[in-house]
């Protein structure tokens, strides 16, 4: 009787074995993913086509693959120098923001100094400030510091992007560490700074990886700030502004545009492939706190 009821519950379908079910799920997922990444795959193949063949009706795989689009994008469209500009902004802001937020998060998570609650409140309060709110003063401030048209200015201002979230991640993680660690270090006569650097920081690896990945994604993708700062100085454009400008300036060079786009994506894709395991584990560890 009971099994009859179960059968009915499933709409009369014969029960599938878990293996068959997984295979069906995989097939559905594969189809979904194929549609999902189709635009990017198309772009990749288009970047290997000669310009006259971009919209030719010959299927997805190019019949006469060539790398000339890449050569043109890298030199003539300056994607080469934009690439290094972006690398500078990304690496610089990742280093600065990781150190600054780890230190701040450590103190906020482990110590009860006067003013801690107020600082916490202020941080959370600013969590929801949209970028459009701060862009004008930031540009004005950088200009008055002489950084209004410089890569250093872009790099410094990019550190603020997800600053508050990172501090809260570190603070949450450090606060759930056992007190014994610090006490043991103090017993052994290890000072505050050394305890942080040699004991606590190595233990916070999941958060460090999370912050590095998230800040890299942010800096590599950031658009409004670099767009505003490089309006008057095209030579310091970042990749995403460069691709955007490419579209405006050489709108018939589709091959070059696709190659420029591919150049922009490939480094972050590789980074994510290498770090994705740590990234997900790190996030899981971070939100647990």
């Amino acid at each position, binding site marked *: 009787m009971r099994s009859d009821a179960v059968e009915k519950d499933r709409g009369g379908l014969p029960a599938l074995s878990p293996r068959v079910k997984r295979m069906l799920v995989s097939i559905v997922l594969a189809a979904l993913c194929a549609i999902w990444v189709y635009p990017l795959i198309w*772009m990749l193949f288009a970047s290997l086509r000669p310009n006259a063949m971009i919209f030719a009706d010959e299927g997805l795989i190019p019949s006469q693959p060539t790398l000339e689009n890449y050569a043109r994008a890298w030199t003539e469209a300056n994607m080469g120098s934009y690439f290094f500009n972006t690398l500078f902004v990304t690496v610089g802001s990742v280093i600065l923001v990781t150190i600054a937020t780890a230190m701040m998060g450590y103190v906020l998570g482990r110590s009860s100094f006067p003013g801690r609650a107020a600082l916490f409140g202020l941080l959370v309060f600013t969590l929801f400030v*949209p970028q459009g709110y*701060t862009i004008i003063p930031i540009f004005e401030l950088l200009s008055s510091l002489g950084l209004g048209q410089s890569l250093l200015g872009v790099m410094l201002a990019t550190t*603020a992007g997800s600053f508050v979230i990172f501090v809260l991640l570190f603070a949450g993680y450090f606060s759930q560490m056992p007190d014994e660690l610090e006490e043991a270090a103090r017993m052994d006569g290890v000072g505050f700074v050394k305890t942080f650097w040699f004991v606590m920081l190595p233990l916070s690896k999941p958060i460090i990886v999370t912050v590095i990945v998230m800040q890299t994604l942010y800096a590599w993708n950031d658009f409004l700030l670099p767009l505003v700062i490089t309006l008057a100085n095209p030579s310091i454009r970042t990749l995403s502004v460069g691709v*955007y400008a490419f579209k405006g300036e050489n709108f018939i060079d589709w091959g070059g545009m696709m190659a420029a*786009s591919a150049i922009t994506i490939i480094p972050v894709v590789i980074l994510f492939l290498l770090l994705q395991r740590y990234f997900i584990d790190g996030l899981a560890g971070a939100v647990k706190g």
Partner: protein
Amino acid sequence: MAQTFTAHAVFLDRVWTHWKEYLFLVPGMLIFGTFIIYPMLASQYYSLLQWTGFDSNQVFIGFDNYVALLGDSFFWDAFLRSFVFTAITVPAQLLISLIIAIVLNDRLLRLSALFRTLIFLPVVTPVAVIGIVMAIMLSPFNGPVNIALLDAGFVTRALDFLGDPNLVLPTLAAIYVWKWTGVTMVYWLAALQTVPRELFEAARLDGVRGWQVAVFIILPMIMPFAIVITLISAISALNVFPLIQAMTQGGPFFASEVMEVFIFRTAFAPGGGAVPQLGYASAAGVFFGVAIMVLTILQIVATRHLRSVERSRAV
């Protein structure tokens, strides 16, 4: 007098014993103060100015900008669009990514790492690139999407997704969801990792199957994360400027002009020979920022209230 003096001394003493902690705050405070706190305060001051370009004079005009904003239909349309956009994209993004994450969380599913990477790819694709590729995909002249729709018989003539004022906002919302679902999926996956395996086993033995596992076992366990993930997604959706600037610049006929595009246009790229209005744009930014903060606080209060109601019920 003497008492307050000792109180001060005790306070200063406490501050002094923590001097190393304060030193540790310095790098962070430099970034926080310079690029987050200062701009917030400065924006509020700028919003009281008539200021037409970075090189021109600033004239203090009080609240005139705000008064002008209240009567500016372009502002209100953009303001409304920002919230509509968030209301469409956030639930869609949360739901789609949660379903994908639950399916991919199955350890025995081979290729799950590959699928995860593929779904994540649009996240690492800069919006400028998406702007170009999607313009080709959605082109009314033989774009792949239109060809597919025509072949399947869903439409009788090609749709101009990005050129039709009625279609442009839903289209951008769909592209936005496509771009950011991957990151929300990773958040969900991280949350799902905290659900103990034994729970699935126990549920299975109790005869709980399929979607019931999701609703009765998984959801209650990841509820605390759900609140954080929803907040992060909502904040991100309000910062949609890059995607829209790269794809339509707010067009056609302002049909996709959200708040930040309005601010950017007013402050940096007025077009048509008009002067940039930095004070006016700041006022719009402040108004928008305060509105978001109020909504966030309301949301937090509401969740707290719900939680305390639940708790009192449990007791």
